[in-house]
């Protein structure tokens, strides 16, 4: 008798777990434990007492509701966009898909520069409105407001919904919905009772990722929200860096971790209840051309919204990088910001040409893709086999997403002090730190697809005499190619744009692009600001090109989403 495997991967269960768990233990739990032990020791030595719960409660409450609100808004934009991308063929789709992914890689300083160019006191929109309505002051205030925070969160995270839900939607077999319609369901009924339940795992996965990203939001709150808003992560930063209150910082970090764990666990419970294994369709044969006026209008509307919210700030940034202030105070077109990047004008020891920084960034990003895809795939398989432990294991894997970057960064510094794993000499610690954050993305995009592969397919392959390796290659691999690609792109962009952990770990001679950008924007002078914008535009171009090429990697007929 042939015993069908629950999930066909040609190794034993324990082996699957070994690598991802060892990785987490060494690079996440060990440094985290070390720094928390430091905090506890410091509390024991100097005494630590909370006179009220306000320092914990206040940031926790704000963190939770702003993350909830941001997630809802992101879904409101992301879901219709995912539908449009999964169902219609239209001109410029590939370009728009790449462009909507790019916000993800932008360091916050630069995103703020883009939004300032649009919405700032002298931004395009304010200038236009002032001229139109004869106003003396700018009507739109964006910095230091809650809506500014929400706007930038939507800007950053819509791509998660678009990619995760969009890829599942594109793979959904349309015959289910058609059957429902034939049986008399209205389009709305069919959507509510057939399509959405089938998409539920990926919608939940996307919502979880977006929520956790907003939950641990740091630079956006700090820069856009200003001093009147503080999330847990901001409070941890202040307690660590400015007040040197390690015990309170440690306590806040633990609260943030526990919340992440609970949220992920609840997600697992909700998600794990009933998964309907469905054979995903492989080709995009059902992609439709736009026919009716209504369809055209809807797609036009959604795309306009996407372009306004996601693409325009980046375009403003790129445009601004090509303008310089003349001696007469007038802005003029100039390529000076770019040409200056290639000159070490101050003869600085720490000067790095843009190509050097770009190569460092690309190297780290590729290692991150490799690490997180291998480890993430192993973990996703292990999870889909151990159904009973799935909730716990998936929460463990997701935990790094909710860990405070400041805490973990300090943990790395106190843990990896000796060769060969030595922060100041071992260059791979940067992609390792990036992989910790990228792995949950890979697992989340893989898992719904993996759970959806019907056991009957593998059984059939087994009955027909295929070895387990062959079954994996011929059954699983083709079905997983698309989610693997999505996960890989997430890992790639996450690594390219990551700034927090990198500042802790990067050596000054080998900065990444975001680190180099921060160097310029930390100095006064128009050229420094301009060079930061020029460097960011280069980062956008490189990343756009890389995503474009990555998407070419999949076979024809699967290029959508």
């Amino acid at each position, binding site marked *: 008798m042939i015993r069908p495997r629950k999930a066909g991967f040609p190794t034993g269960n324990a082996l699957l777990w070994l690598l991802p768990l060892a990785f987490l233990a060494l690079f996440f739990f060990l440094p985290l434990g070390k720094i928390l032990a430091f905090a506890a020791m410091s509390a024991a030595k100097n005494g630590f007492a909370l006179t009220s719960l306000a320092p914990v409660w206040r940031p926790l409450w704000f963190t939770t509701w702003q993350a909830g609100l941001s997630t809802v808004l992101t879904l409101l934009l992301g879901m219709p966009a995912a539908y449009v991308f999964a169902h219609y063929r239209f001109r410029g789709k590939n370009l728009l898909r790449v462009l909507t992914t790019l916000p993800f890689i932008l360091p916050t300083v630069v995103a703020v520069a883009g939004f300032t160019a649009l919405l700032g006191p002298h931004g395009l929109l304010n200038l236009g409105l002032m001229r139109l309505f004869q106003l003396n002051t700018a009507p739109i205030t964006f910095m230091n407001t809650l809506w500014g925070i929400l706007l930038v969160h939507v800007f950053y995270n819509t791509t998660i919904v678009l990619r995760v839900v969009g890829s599942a939607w594109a793979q959904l077999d349309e015959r289910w919905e058609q059957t429902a319609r034939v049986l008399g369901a209205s389009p709305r009924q069919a959507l509510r009772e057939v399509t959405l339940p089938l998409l539920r795992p990926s919608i939940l996965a996307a919502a979880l990722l977006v929520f956790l990203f907003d939950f641990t939001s740091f630079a956006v709150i700090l820069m856009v929200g*200003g001093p009147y808003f503080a999330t847990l992560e901001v409070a941890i930063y202040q307690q660590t*860096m400015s*007040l040197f209150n390690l015990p309170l910082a440690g306590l806040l970090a633990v609260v943030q971790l526990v919340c992440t764990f609970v949220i992920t666990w609840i997600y697992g419970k909700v998600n794990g209840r009933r998964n309907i294994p469905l054979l995903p369709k492989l080709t995009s044969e059902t992609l439709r051309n736009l026919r009716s006026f209504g369809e055209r209008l809807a797609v036009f509307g959604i795309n306009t919204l996407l372009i306004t919210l996601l693409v325009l700030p980046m375009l403003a940034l790129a445009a601004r990088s090509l303008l310089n202030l003349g001696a007469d105070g007038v802005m003029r077109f100039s390529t000076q910001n770019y040409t200056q990047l290639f000159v070490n004008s101050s003869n600085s*020891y720490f000067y790095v040409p843009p190509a050097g920084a770009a190569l460092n960034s690309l190297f780290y990003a590729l290692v991150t893709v490799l690490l997180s895809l291998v480890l993430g795939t192993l973990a996703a398989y292990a999870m889909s086999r151990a159904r009973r432990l799935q909730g716990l294991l998936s929460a463990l894997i997701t935990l790094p997403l909710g860990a405070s970057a400041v805490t973990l960064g300090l943990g790395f510094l106190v843990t990896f002090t000796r060769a060969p794993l030595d922060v100041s000499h071992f260059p791979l610690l940067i992609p390792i730190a990036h992989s910790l954050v990228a792995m949950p993305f890979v697992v989340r995009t893989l898992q719904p697809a993996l759970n959806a592969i019907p056991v009957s397919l593998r059984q059939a392959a087994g009955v027909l005499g295929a070895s387990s390796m062959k079954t994996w290659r011929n059954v699983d691999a083709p079905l997983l190619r698309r989610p693997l690609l999505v996960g890989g792109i997430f890992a790639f962009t996450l690594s390219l744009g990551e700034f927090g952990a990198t500042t802790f770990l990067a*050596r*000054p001679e080998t900065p990444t692009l975001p680190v180099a950008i921060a160097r310029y924007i*930390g100095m006064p*002078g*128009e050229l420094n600001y301009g060079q930061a914008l020029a460097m960011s535009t280069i980062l956008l171009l490189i990343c756009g090109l890389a995503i474009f090429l990555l998407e070419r990697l999949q076979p024809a007929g699967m290029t959508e989403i």
Partner: protein
Amino acid sequence: MKQKITSMLILALALAFALSACQPKPAETATLTIMTHDSFAASEDVIAAFEAENNVKMVFVKSGDAGSTLNRAILTRENPQADVLYGVDNTLLSRALDEGIYEPYDSPLLAGIPAEFQLDATHNALPVDYGDVCINYDKAYFAEHNLPVPQTLADLTQPEYNSLLVVENPATSSTGLVFLLATIAEYGEDGYITYWQQLKDNGLVIVNDWSTAYYTNFSASSGKGAQPMALSYASSPPVEVIYAAEPPADAPTASLVGRNMCFRQIEFAGILKGTPNRALAEKFIDYMLSVKFQEDMPLQMFMYPVNSEAQLPEVFVKYSQIPAEPAALDPAVIAANRDKWLNDWTEAILR
């Protein structure tokens, strides 16, 4: 036969070994590691000259701002990650000294440094440079609106300056913290909160970080923001001139340098306790205090030399003002009170 070969081999090996022992060893390049904040910079040839002179390879470890760099040094004290720590300033000095992370070094070059900079009598931390945190103003705006330039901190609460000033949050930005200290030096522990409340009533804008204040809010930067006064450094006006797209006829900004309006930051370097490279570390400290390094600093780090023999570059002489009466507080007083001040300020002004 076989034995003979073996013994001959041993003999040859022994001979080779003995010969190699007699030969002068090829000089080995040592490495010297400097831990510093992100703003550290130096000219290529200045570093290269030190490396060549001492046959040493310099390694720099950067760790964010001064606060997080000190944090790192303290947390890795048992297992020092560098030989020299640069970048602790007078707001952090007491904390660094209390934690005992340095080894004292009485450099002969201290003789050329005025006593006002030598805040640590034990010579654990040696002054390297200083800079003044001052409010910069947009010269064009003040000229256009015929506004007199504020002369005192109290002037800033006057209605004619309503909504014209942006400062950084002391709890998230070191620049902001330093300005908070200036107001405490002027108004004392009992009066500074009242002063800040008056500032707030007069439309003070607070943001979290320097780049937002300077590039988004300040009207004289290329962001063309809404506030013509922004908290920055006395060295920012000459830097604006150096990094202008087209060389301007005059600096677009200047600093408010009235009594107690600026706070002087002094940055220190020290040898980290337990270094195996004590001799080289001493040499590097001496080098940092020497005229060559000190004259390189203004254009690299935008800080001023403490060595009285070092000359300032012309653009600094021309466009930067050095306040005659900067605010100052005893580092020990700062260390004892900064957490309380920050908490009180946050509760009173931000909540």
